[in-house]
């Protein structure tokens, strides 16, 4: 349910995810432009387990072309490799250019992030100027759907 994630689930891992985001900001060779925690909908339903962190980064990745979709990696705690989270952390990585194209072409992970923003199930943890532009793109992408729904 919209709003429930913000008020109930997010606070449970907020401190840990903010700490992780701060660590990612320290990777100066891959500048963090945007970090956004969100609640995805997969297979038509809200995902009830897992922490989803969407990050737009710069650096080497800016030299690459478009992929079929954004890159997602999941981290579970396994013996000898703790994560500090009691749930799976899903890290979705992209660049601003790749994300813009992914939004345009309706790539699944880009649409998933946009969908979470449309439902208000997200929390921006960090953004710089580039990240602000990406946020505007996402909000612009979900805007017409709102109008269509109202119409």
């Amino acid at each position: 349910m919209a709003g429930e994630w913000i008020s109930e689930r997010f606070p449970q891992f907020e401190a840990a995810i903010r700490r992780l985001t701060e660590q990612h900001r320290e990777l100066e060779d891959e500048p963090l432009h945007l970090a956004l925690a969100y609640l995805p909908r997969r297979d038509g339903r809200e995902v009830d387990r897992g922490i989803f962190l969407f990050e737009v980064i710069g650096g080497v990745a800016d030299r690459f072309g478009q992929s079929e979709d954004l890159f997602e990696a999941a981290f579970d705690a396994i013996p000898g490799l703790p994560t500090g989270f009691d749930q799976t952390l899903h890290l979705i990585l992209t660049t601003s250019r790749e994300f813009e194209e992914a939004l345009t072409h309706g790539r699944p992970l880009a649409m998933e992030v946009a969908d979470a923003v449309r439902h208000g199930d997200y929390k921006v943890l960090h953004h710089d100027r580039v990240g602000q532009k990406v946020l505007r793109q996402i909000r612009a992408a979900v805007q017409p759907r709102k109008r269509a729904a109202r119409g």
Partner: protein
Amino acid sequence: MDEALAWLHQALADREAAEREYKATAKAGSRIWCHALAKYQQTVEKAVKAMVAALREAGFWRGPPIGFVHEVERHMRWLIRLRRTNNPQSVQRRLVRLFDADTRATIRAVEALTPQAPPPGERLRRNTEYPFHDANGDFTYPAAPDQFSSEEIDRFRALSHRLVESAHWVISALRRRPR
């Protein structure tokens, strides 16, 4: 800079050199692909080693240093045998998908084009750098026209692009792994 990024940056530089050579050869219409192929092979080798270094730095694997051996077969063997979780998006399972049978075969094929001493009594094998024996046992050389087909160059070019970009995302994710 950590070791994984150092390997990755060198892989990217090799890929750029390969692309320059590939485009110049294509533009000239010379069909001398050996130089571009050698660089694509080096790109593949370094991209794999970059992933190996990142996995070791992240604690996924404890083994000997990468070393100076060019072939990556031994690395591929354990890259697809890392301790896994059930999550299909885990780095371990991503590596299994990345190094599927076709990809491993293509990597072996491009590796087979590095110069290697033949077993005693056997002919010198086709490679991208040194003279070798043709089917009749005569000497030829890698830069002789049409020693390598355009299908080969396209196949190895695509492999190098895929591996270096995958290596980047795997490394970026591992650097961001919660600890």
